[in-house]
């Protein structure tokens, strides 16, 4: 079946290191996305006409452009247009942050819009100041809704970063291909075992995180 190849030499460690490369890029992009997304989401909630239109356009671009196309645009297009030397890693962090920020901003906007107006009015009636309203009433509720959603964004980020192999970064899929090529003579069935393990590795990486997200969502449902 080809599972023996995995345990030959350093193959398993190489696969894990490959997954590490993808993970590193996804974690960096996820952090940037969450931070920028919170800021942009709050700006969207302000409902300023011009700013709102620009942000809507940005969201719409991200909504309909596949991440793969964005990756090509930055990696091939920007380098061609400006002559700048962007490494594949930098290009992928830029693209995934660009995508993730839009997703996060939309989540933040949705959460803010989901807070019933009665919450603001009741707080005001109780004599809270504007700062107190946000600090004690609105922000705690938003954080409870946002944390599961942001965790979910991280798993989506991990899944999306598998695309980096298409612009030549050596990550887990590329390592898998190399291992299969190296063992083509000795084990012609290696492809099944190796790709099954890659499949499983991704599942092990994402499943606990999405479970956590679901658990928190259920727990904090009011």
């Amino acid at each position, binding site marked *: *079946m080809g599972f023996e190849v995995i345990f030959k030499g350093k193959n398993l460690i190489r696969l894990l290191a490959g997954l590490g490369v993808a993970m590193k890029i996804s974690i960096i992009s996820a952090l940037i996305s969450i931070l920028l997304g919170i800021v942009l989401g709050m700006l969207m909630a302000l409902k300023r006409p011009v700013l709102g239109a620009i942000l809507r356009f940005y969201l719409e671009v991200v909504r*309909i452009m596949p991440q793969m196309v964005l990756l090509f645009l930055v990696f091939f297009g920007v380098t061609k247009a400006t002559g700048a030397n962007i490494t594949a890693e930098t290009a992928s962090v830029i693209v995934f942050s660009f995508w993730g920020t839009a997703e996060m901003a939309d989540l933040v906007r949705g959460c803010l819009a989901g807070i019933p107006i009665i919450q603001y009015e009741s707080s005001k009636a109780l004599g809270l100041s504007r700062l107190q309203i946000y600090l004690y009433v609105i922000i705690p509720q938003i954080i409870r809704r946002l944390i599961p959603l942001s965790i979910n964004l991280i798993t989506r980020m991990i899944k999306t970063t598998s695309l980096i192999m298409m612009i030549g970064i050596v990550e887990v899929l590329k390592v898998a291909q190399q291992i299969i090529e190296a063992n083509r003579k000795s084990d012609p069935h290696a492809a099944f075992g190796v790709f099954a393990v890659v499949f499983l590795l991704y599942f092990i990486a994402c499943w606990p995180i999405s479970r956590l997200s679901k658990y928190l969502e259920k727990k904090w449902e009011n």
Partner: protein
Amino acid sequence: MNAEIISSYLPLYGKAFLLTVQIGWIGIALAFLIGVICAFILFFRIPVAEKLVKCYVELFRNTPLLVQLFFIYYGLPAIGIKVGAKVCGAVGLGLLGGSYMTESIRSGLEAVPVIQTESARSLGLNARQLFIAIILPQAFTISVPGIIANVIFLLKETSVFSAISLMDLMFTAKDLIGLYYNTTESLFLLVVFYILMLLPVSIAGSFLEKKTRFKMFGD
């Protein structure tokens, strides 16, 4: 940007566009079918099948399409199951999409308020009438936004087909950039064709969402 180059590339992109759209929509149809069947299995709690569906949904929701396609296209032939690139693309997309559709449709079915079921029962509807006349229409309305989001997501996912050497839009763009180095024109056409593919769906989706929303009961 050179208009002559663009017009000479157009037929190539047109062909790739048709292929991408074709496989994409076959995959989506398959995903919807799998989603409906699996959601019903979950909703009616059919003993063994329920466990299997749960495993399938978790497995495919937590892995990227690229990895799934590599497994189907390069992994399965090693144990004797050979599939062509087109079939692999459609089936891969269908399996990935099926897991997402299952979740959307199931949550729609479960979101129908209990009082609806109880009222229908007290009015004397039997189980079949209850499901077809009361639960299904309302569940569908609730599921529509999720289904539309999934369709757009799946159409975007078609961009990884080039990894299994399907001559799709991404493949064509990459090929042309490699051959002639007309990066600007190739990328421009790539973006144009993806807009052509997704913008109508996005607009139609928002329209459909608005159309179905008013049918929600009590909202």
